[in-house]
């Protein structure tokens, strides 16, 4: 159902008194992008049907007063829309634009007559009246910031005392104008640095004196000049671009859920076309898109790594997929580029039952409420089935480009926490991590020490059919470390594997931070006692690490195993391969000809192994 139809159906359900259905539609609506006019419409429906919505068993009514340093009507509609999706039927009160101080100080103001349960201070950098003078010391800047925060704190205290309401305070976004240009972030007295100082002080009070709504973070993610589109400020004193009110509403709902202890606890994922591209049942473990097989594969690995990080932050993971369980498990057990492992998942439901039944059993098994689950799936039919049967589950349709899956999930602010405790971080993990970084710092003073500290391990193998797609793709997209510019398609390339007078070597590298996988390949042929290199490529991610020396040492070994006495190389200059212009020279070759292309040779007998910081890795390359 498209957006307009969803809103229409939501409205019809309310009119006919089917509140349960209406609630399920509003949940679907709140996870897709809504225009200000959509949220205005929804907000009016909430006002019209407030009684019937409030009387629904799992809903609660909530009175929110918004004290704005700018026009807040658009964000109020967004708050009402998104909080309804989380089960709060909001009644709102808005102060007049920029009269918030008076409202707080005047005991007879509308604010107090309203008796709010939540008071939102919707202020922004536009409300900062005074900035530090140019040349102020850091101490002066901090003192000034403390004074301003103190003024806000006085207002919070008065409101808390008179109403007992929960206080939510915006922090400050960077000013759009950056007067110092390149030096904006150099001096503590610049407007931008002043904003940072204010925010640091506010964060220290977060969760104790009030809850901070991270406008700063959101404006950075959306882009500052988009966040505060100056047209809207001049037109109607809007401190936040109305186009972004959906984002704002999601962020607000995320914070309010965290305050109320209703943040999501568990992420339930589908597998095919969600964690990897393709269908493991049809394409097999080798055929699915994950890892550096392709750009799309990399996007899926990025999403999987992100999910793994969520687990480290304390989010429970579960699988719910229509698949053969053993086959699906193989991906986690055997695929070298799948960052998630079976023990990352608290539940692994792969069968042919309906997804809603599986999700219900996951919730039961984990002993958590249905409303603490998030389900992601690429298939709209499955999503619809789950959201119809289990309306409390947050269902996210992960369609489209996998490169944006993380962004899509993050925009919804589902997994908010108020604090991160030491326990959340998982002691051992973080200590190991810290150990790594420190040893890196110590040794990073010189290049040799740095390369040593990376603990690089590599291997060079004769390429097999399985390596072909990746090698072929590398030849097509590697321009810098590319000796001749020759490209191959899969059929040319398989010649190098099958024909005994030709060869193709591929190299893999990992270090203590990452497994880079297959990052280099050499093609060539052998006639009599001469090994001729046809082309050699290497991914730019592993440049300058002495990996080419490592590979070349292996190539020389290979040449002597093949009884070759000479290695010939060729360098053909292209627009972008200057990086390897003197590679042969560095490796100890001599130039014999430089007409159309440079021809180089090296006598195997007199070759001495080159210095490299890459160690030989036996077995499969793994982190």
């Amino acid at each position, binding site marked *: 159902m498209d957006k*307009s139809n969803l809103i229409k159906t939501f409205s019809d359900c309310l009119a006919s008194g089917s509140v349960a259905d209406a609630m399920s539609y509003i949940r679907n609506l709140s996870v897709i992008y809504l*225009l*200000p*006019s959509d949220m*205005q*419409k929804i907000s*009016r429906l909430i006002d019209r049907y407030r009684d019937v919505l409030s009387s629904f068993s799992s809903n609660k009514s909530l009175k929110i007063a918004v004290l704005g340093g700018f026009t807040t*009507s*658009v964000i109020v509609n967004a708050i009402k829309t998104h909080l309804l999706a989380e089960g709060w039927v909001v009644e709102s009160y808005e102060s007049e634009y920029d009269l918030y101080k008076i409202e707080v100080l005047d005991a007879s103001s509308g604010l107090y007559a309203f008796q709010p349960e939540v008071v939102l201070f919707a202020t922004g950098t536009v409300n900062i009246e005074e900035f530090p003078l140019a040349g102020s010391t850091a101490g002066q800047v901090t003192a000034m910031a403390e004074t301003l925060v103190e003024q806000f704190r006085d207002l919070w205290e008065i409101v808390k005392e008179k109403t007992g309401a929960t206080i939510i305070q915006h922090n400050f976004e960077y000013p759009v104008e950056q007067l110092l240009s390149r030096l904006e972030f150099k001096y503590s007295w610049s407007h931008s640095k002043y904003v940072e100082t204010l925010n640091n002080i506010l964060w220290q009070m977060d969760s104790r004196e009030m809850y901070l709504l991270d406008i700063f973070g959101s404006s950075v993610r959306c882009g500052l000049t988009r966040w505060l589109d*100056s*047209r*809207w400020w*001049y*037109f*109607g004193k*809007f401190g936040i671009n*109305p*186009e972004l009110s959906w984002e704002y509403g999601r962020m607000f709902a995320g914070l309010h859920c965290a305050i109320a202890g209703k943040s999501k606890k568990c992420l339930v994922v589908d597998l095919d076309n969600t964690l990897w591209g393709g269908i493991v049942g049809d394409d097999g473990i080798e055929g699915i898109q994950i890892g550096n097989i392709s750009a799309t594969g990399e996007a899926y690995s990025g999403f999987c790594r992100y999910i793994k990080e969520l687990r480290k932050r304390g989010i429970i993971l579960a699988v719910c997929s229509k698949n053969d369980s053993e086959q699906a498990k193989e991906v986690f057990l055997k695929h070298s580029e799948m960052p998630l492992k079976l023990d990352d998942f608290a539940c692994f439901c792969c069968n042919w039952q309906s997804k809603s039944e599986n999700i219900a059993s996951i919730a039961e098994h984990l002993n958590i409420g249905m409303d603490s689950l998030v389900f992601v799936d690429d298939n709209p039919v499955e999503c619809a089935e789950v959201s119809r049967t289990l309306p409390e589950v947050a269902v996210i349709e992960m369609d489209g480009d996998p490169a944006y899956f993380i962004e899509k999930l993050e925009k919804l602010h589902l997994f908010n926490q108020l604090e991160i405790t030491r326990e959340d971080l998982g002691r051992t993990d973080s200590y190991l991590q810290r150990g790594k970084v420190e040893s890196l710092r110590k040794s990073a003073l010189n290049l040799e020490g740095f390369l040593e500290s990376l603990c690089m391990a590599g291997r060079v193998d004769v390429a097999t059919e399985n390596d072909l797609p990746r090698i072929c793709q590398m030849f097509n997209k590697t321009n810098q470390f590319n000796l001749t510019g020759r490209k191959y398609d899969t059929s040319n390339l398989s010649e190098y594997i099958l024909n005994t007078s030709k060869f193709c070597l591929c190299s893999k590298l990992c270090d203590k931070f990452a497994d880079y996988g297959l990052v280099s390949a050499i093609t060539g042929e052998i006639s009599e006692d001469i090994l001729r290199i046809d082309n050699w490529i290497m991914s730019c991610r592993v440049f300058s690490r002495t990996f080419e020396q490592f590979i070349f040492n292996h190539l020389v070994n290979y040449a002597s195993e093949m009884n070759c006495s000479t290695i010939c190389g060729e360098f053909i200059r292209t627009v972008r391969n200057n990086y390897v212009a003197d590679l042969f020279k560095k490796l100890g070759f001599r130039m014999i000809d430089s007409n159309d292309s440079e021809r180089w040779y090296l006598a195997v007998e007199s070759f001495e192994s080159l210095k490299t910081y890459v160690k030989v890795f036996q077995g499969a390359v793994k982190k």
Partner: protein
Amino acid sequence: MSIMEDINEVFRDVFDDTNLEVTEQMTAQDISEWDSMAQINLIVAFEEKYDIKFTTEEISVLTCVGDMAKLLEAKRIQ
């Protein structure tokens, strides 16, 4: 769809009135709910629909359906 049909659809949506029939002569005076909030809703909806951008001046003075149609036509061609 013609510009006027598009405009009609956006207006019906923004003013939540499925019977609304806009004409080129209509102005903000004819639709009681056409306030500054509605103006924002209209502008953002048109910008989203056509991937165009209005200037501050245009946002402030554009209160006649006919003018809106002309401007949308011009911007869409750009």
